[in-house]
């Protein structure tokens, strides 16, 4: 009977060579970015601009966490692409409903009674 495949004998996955100092630097960057979000929350900008800035910072934080804390940067590039492209596609596909949300808010163009509706 042939031996069962043993993943332990295969190529090692990522070899993590990051030093503790590098982790602390990334941690510091994440703290700074998180603090920046709190600063933006008290800045005098409209909600849309505030949302956009916070989203950008959150994406930057997530990128750092994914690449260095979760060691995606040390994995094979194919795996990195698989995770980023697949997840990114799913997350982007969820954004299809915003036009409906805006229509609920602004009431145009079809939310008015009988507006754009062909009566039977």
């Amino acid at each position, binding site marked *: 009977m042939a031996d069962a495949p043993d993943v332990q004998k295969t190529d090692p996955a990522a070899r993590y060579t990051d030093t503790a100092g590098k982790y602390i630097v990334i941690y510091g960057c994440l703290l700074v970015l998180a603090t920046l979000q709190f600063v933006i929350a008290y800045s005098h900008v409209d909600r849309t601009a505030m949302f956009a800035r916070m989203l950008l910072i959150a994406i930057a934080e997530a990128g750092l966490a994914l690449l260095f804390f979760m060691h995606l940067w040390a994995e094979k590039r194919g795996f990195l692409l698989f995770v980023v492209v697949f997840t990114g596609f799913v997350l982007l596909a969820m954004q299809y409903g915003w036009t409906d949300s805006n229509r*609920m808010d602004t009431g145009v163009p079809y939310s008015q009674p009988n507006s754009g509706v062909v009566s039977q």
Partner: protein
Amino acid sequence: MSQADLTIHGQPPGLVTGIPPFSVAAKKMAIWLFIIADAATFAGCLVAYGFLRNGTPNWPTPFESIVNVAAMTFILLTSSLTMLFGVRAAKAGDKSRAFLWTMITALGGIIFAALHIREWMGLIHGGMTMFHNPWGTPLFGASFFSITGLHLLHVTGGVIALLAVGVRYKGGRYNADDLEVTGLYWHFVDLVWMFVVPFVYLLNLSR
């Protein structure tokens, strides 16, 4: 590229040769697939929340202080760092130090959960529930408790996993790879919080 180029010793990779896809071990691949699916779950919740917030006039902004959420963020971020130290020590074969860092990480999770529950109790005493909100639309209470509750559930699960894996690692039943897989989950919980804080808390500050 011919078919032969895609095979290893005449077999497709991952089936017979034992070489896993992307050279990522099965356990790690499993947690990554879980993380991708869970990211979609949280994203779905946050998009639904944004949908409601965008489409609801006079959305309440009940949060007056950022001290609690800032402390929670700091603790969760720090627990990610301690988790990294734990995995690093485990990879280096330093079992006692790896166990210690893992337990410190779990303690961070427990403190985070305690602060979270304290905040919830304050809001509940203020009259906010899943179906009622004294400051306006009840949708706020429903979405707030749903999103933060789902995250708190993940933190609780993570703490239990850290304690269980940490103890079994120390006892020799689990190895450094198991600790690393648990660490990946813990970092993901931290990553989600980076999106929950700005959208659920900071955009709802009363000013």
